[in-house]
């Protein structure tokens, strides 16, 4: 079986994978990082969103081997263990932007990418449009939109010592 090496949440990792092994499978099964979830088989639900070299990517639509040498950040990498939460994570809690929690890691990772591309001052319309790649069945998105707007703003105020990208 081919070998693969990458950096995940700042740690160098490697493993043996089949050519057809998806990045999400490598993360969940080999690295036991189960915060990234699988919700569909057509790359639409967004539960699997991680950052690869600083950019949001659907880990269900990447082969593990495609990430050879890449820097990957998952939801588990946003905050130091025992450290403060990332402002975007805090915002989701503060604004009740989650119910069952299953879409939440992908939502948060996608939200960070919206901030990266569109800045800290996000209006409702922009957030709704930019969430095209993430499906939530529980919240109706109302509070997710509020959470993302607040999280983006707090990131802009210097909140959070650890940026998601790199």
């Amino acid at each position, binding site marked *: 079986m081919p070998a693969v090496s990458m950096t995940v949440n700042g740690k160098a990792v490697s493993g043996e994978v089949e050519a057809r092994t998806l990045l999400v499978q490598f993360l969940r099964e080999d690295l036991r990082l189960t915060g990234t979830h699988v919700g569909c088989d057509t790359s*639409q*639900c967004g539960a699997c969103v991680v950052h690869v070299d600083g950019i949001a990517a659907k880990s269900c639509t990447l082969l593990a081997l495609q990430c050879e040498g890449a820097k990957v950040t998952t939801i588990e990498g946003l905050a130091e263990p025992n450290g403060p*939460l990332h402002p975007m994570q805090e915002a989701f*809690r503060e604004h*009740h932007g989650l119910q069952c*929690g299953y879409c939440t890691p992908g939502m948060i990772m996608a939200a960070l990418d919206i901030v990266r591309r569109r800045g800290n001052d996000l209006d409702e319309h922009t957030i709704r449009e930019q969430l095209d790649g993430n499906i939530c069945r529980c919240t*109706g998105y109302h509070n997710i*939109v509020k959470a993302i707007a607040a999280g983006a703003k707090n990131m802009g105020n210097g909140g959070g010592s650890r940026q998601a990208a790199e």
Partner: protein
Amino acid sequence: MTATNSATGIGAAVRRKEDFRFITGKGQYTDDVVRPGETRAVFVRSPHAHAKIKNIDVSAAKKMPGVVDVLTGVDLATDKIGNLICGWMIHSKDGSPMKMAAHPALAAGKVNCVGDAVAVVIADTLAQGRDAAEKVKVDYEVLAAVVDPAKTQAQGAPQIHADIARNTIYQWHLGDAKATEAAFAAAKHVTRLDIINNRLVPNAIEPRAALAEYDAGTDQLTLWNTTQNPHVSRLVIAAFVGMAPEHKLRVIAPDVGGGFGSKIFIYPEEVVCLWASRKTHRPVKWVADRTESFLTDAHGRDHVTHAELALDANGKILALRARTIANLGAYMSTFSSSVPTYLYGTLLSGQYDIPSIYCEVDAVYTNTAPVDAYRGAGRPEATFVVERLVEVAARQMGIEPAELRKRNFIKSFPHQTPVIMAYDAGDYNASLKKALEIADVKGFGKRKREAARHGKLRGLGFSTYIEACGLAPSQAAGSLGAGVGLWESAEVRVNPTGSVEVLTGCHAHGQGHETTFAQLVSERLGIPFENVSIVHGDTDKVQFGMGTYGSRSAAVGMSAIVKALDKVEAKAKKVAAFMLEAAEGDIEFKDGKFTVAGTDKSAAWGDVALNAYIAHKFTGAELEPGLKETSFYDPTNFTFPAGCHICEVEVDTDTGKTTIVNWTAVDDFGTVINPMIVEGQVHGGIAQGIGQALLEGAVYDKDGQLVSGSFMDYSMPHAHDLPSFNIGLTETKSPSNPLGIKGCGEAGAIAAPAAVINAITDAIGTEQLAMPATANAVWSALKRAQPRQATEQAA
């Protein structure tokens, strides 16, 4: 109430305890659980909607790398594993029982829908399992399929199950046919509608999963499962499927990523995983891929209805009549029979004082996935019928929709409807009035004219819904055919150090019970919110409970906690009496302190808890040590949340696209424990209701192929499809539980579809519009539109 409690007590928008693990990726969902030696199950599923199985050849598959075993329905029958069941008996008009076809977990000689499982591969890895599954050779003799519920009873339609003529499960009715007929004969105006309540796929974002493990040393089976009701699953799998004695089966529902009803039912996959784990002595895990979810999760809705409303000259409703065909799919799922009967017909009075109602429902088999409860379960279907009839009647009679409703609202309580339900408390005028204000209905005309100047059509739609939930008083449910009681259980376990664990038979899969239940306990006992933990989901830990669905956890689950807390308080007072050397009757308990009345002698909660367990202040003859009490609470009635939703839309006549420009919801849920969580439930429910009205629809072609079988083809609501919502609350407490709670989980999904369709039909000036009202559907309706006729239908 102390300052601490008011910030975390009943009515406070406390931030959720459960969030930490979800926002950090530390949730533990079923697929996150890994057991040593775990194998993966891959099901071989029928590609045909209706076929005989001539032969299954597993020999090649068995030889594939990593394969532990390959099993079929023949093996299942040899091992005497029983069939899945529907647990709610419905009788037809002629008194005969419903016709429940056999539903084995792996097909026995015949498949009846696409996705029906015929074999299972157990392999070391998922990839190996998939490779081997492709080598299983199934020889089918394809039969003609029938998928349309309106056609499945016709002469010449394929008969799906032996001995079940006309694919008819039951022919049920409710109400007074004669009185209703007489009322229609005397009516000044009759409104008639043909309505299809479109079939939906629940699509919780976490797919269903099951992980079964057999311990040969103790002959114990453990099942981790995405279930909303672990004890019910355990009971059915033990007693009806006959997998194992109940006490030898443990069911664990860990974190579950959404249910909406679809995870209530007992499905073939968990049965097969349990059986296979005992056969192979290896843990067996199955996780649905989304395609499998589309094919095999119980679908929702799928009613074809002809409905009529009879009114007098002043718009007073005299009677309502409905004839419905309910598609239950290829097999009767666990609660399927109840949804189009006692969860539907009994709500046809709506918020209105209707003297006569008659409802007939035929439930039928088709070669499609089984259909069962999905958020609202019967009440969205009822509300759509009632609220469309009322809105169309208003238009036909030239009466303002809000006014027609006001003329017919029930105004005094209790109110016995003609369809079993006795509404105990409500104020429908109050929610309507508040909704009219919030929605600025007065300004609508101006907004409509302004929109028209830009070539857009604005419309306004009402939905004044009521529903029956807080399932349910057990005796009443039993008399209606339920095979189980619908009470709820709670054990309140006070620890020696004063912290409290509450073991609840409910199960949270997004509803925030770890927070809301703790708010109740914290306030009642006067202890910090952080010192209360809620335990659910494990049949080894928690006493029997009925689970979470039917908007029951607060109304019934919390009531059980209240009753247990009553017992805890009573016992704690006894302990305090010994500690304070006073008479039990002189002990008062307030804000976490026990005081001897009229003195300043007191004992703190923590000291009393410790003393209960150290037991030095009393003898065993005087009082048992310990402080732990249980209650099994049976509600005295359903609860009746109700409210008014107003939807304002703007339709683009060039594209047919509907934009929801304003959504107002004013709901009466009785007592609200956490308004933030309640609003979240309303948001989510409305989103699913809008999804039904504008976007979603499970479509089978004539051969029974599910053509809407992925998120590519089935239009799930995305953030840009939905507006933000304006939520208001009114309150009339429920008199049928100690906290006055009505429940809120399903209300949005119940109210919303009618509001949307009422709004669009208002905008485009025609009633000929089916759900989902996609851009194409609306555009086509506009093309076909006739001027709206005031059809005065005299009897």
